[in-house]
């Protein structure tokens, strides 16, 4: 079994209230896309409340900002889900639902296999990425770093 899994966080700022007409399209695809993630190869875990998704969680003072946090068996598994499934079609509409945020709004990092990241840790990784640019501790799809060769950190 691999020693590490890949954690990902992304944040997004809602353009309009989640229960309004502008976000209806986004809300409609939440359940099917989460279900797709759950059964995708390499999926390990995702943040959710008892509603079955993470939309009730507000990690920042600005309560328009939502968070998505998940863990995958490999970089390729995550990349395949995000960009090579029906998820891509949903992302095509992102500007209809979410405002453009300052970079970085997405961070990837390696966790010991079986570890579940917290929202607090996820926020730290985003801050790390903002301060240092992509490093082994927090990186992006465009500038990835391989799984650590040594003992899990």
């Amino acid at each position, binding site marked *: 079994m691999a020693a590490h899994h890949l954690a990902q966080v992304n944040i997004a700022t809602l353009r309009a209230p989640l229960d309004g007409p502008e976000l209806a399209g986004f809300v409609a695809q939440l359940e099917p896309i989460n279900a797709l993630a759950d059964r995708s190869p390499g999926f390990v875990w995702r943040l959710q409340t008892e509603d079955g998704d993470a939309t009730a969680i507000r990690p920042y003072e600005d309560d328009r900002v939502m968070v998505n946090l998940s863990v995958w068996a490999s970089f390729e598994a995550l990349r395949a889900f995000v960009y*090579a499934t029906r998820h891509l079609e949903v992302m*095509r509409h992102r*500007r209809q639902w979410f405002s*453009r945020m300052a970079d970085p709004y997405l961070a990837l990092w390696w966790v010991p296999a079986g570890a579940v990241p917290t929202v607090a840790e996820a926020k730290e990784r985003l801050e790390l990425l903002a301060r240092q640019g992509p490093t082994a501790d927090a990186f992006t799809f465009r500038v990835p770093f391989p799984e650590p060769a040594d003992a899990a950190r």
Partner: protein
Amino acid sequence: MDSVPPDRDLAAIGLLQDPVRRALYGHVAGASGEVSRNQAAEAVGVQRGLAAFHLDKLVEAGLLEASFRRLGKRRGPGAGRPAKLYRRARGEVAASLPPRTYETAARLLAETVEQAGADLELQVAARRAGREAGRQELATGPPPAVERLLATRGYEPYREERALRLRNCPFSSLAGEYPVLVCAMNLSLIEGLLEGIGEPAGRAGMDPGPDRCCVAVRDRPKATSKDNQD
């Protein structure tokens, strides 16, 4: 950047001047899977030995890749030698005169559009450009078949179930770095193209998969069973 492309790229492209080599390369590059020497020789109409000679030259130049695989079911001693199979090499070969590096500019433009969050504006622009290109096709003759139209634009369409899928992404490396932006742009471009040649709306959609472009073009709905496909 020198005024003359690197030797390796020039040599690779130069190899294709020979019509037999060009035909062999075209056959292998256009095939959906791997091709054996026999298959390639037969498809092009040359002797197996000559095909092998040219195919190996293409491998040497980096245009094709070769692997060995047992084609039949027999294994163990007496099962025969594995066949040498060819497929198009990964990676890109290009030469431009005078020197041009549009990818550098494309990357900067994509980065800026991404930072500005101008996805929708890009989609609108792409759709408009596609529509215009489609209309130009109509201006020069009868409406082209969708498959032909996409083939001339480098998408390498092939039929699968009730749709056309596209083997090649003309923006591959850029799409690799900006997938959401560039794939959405590409879909809008193709939507515009189809609209421009007078096709009913809604035929093109996102359908990503490994080793293919993310867009698929569904067949026309079965209103007229006669020429349903295109």
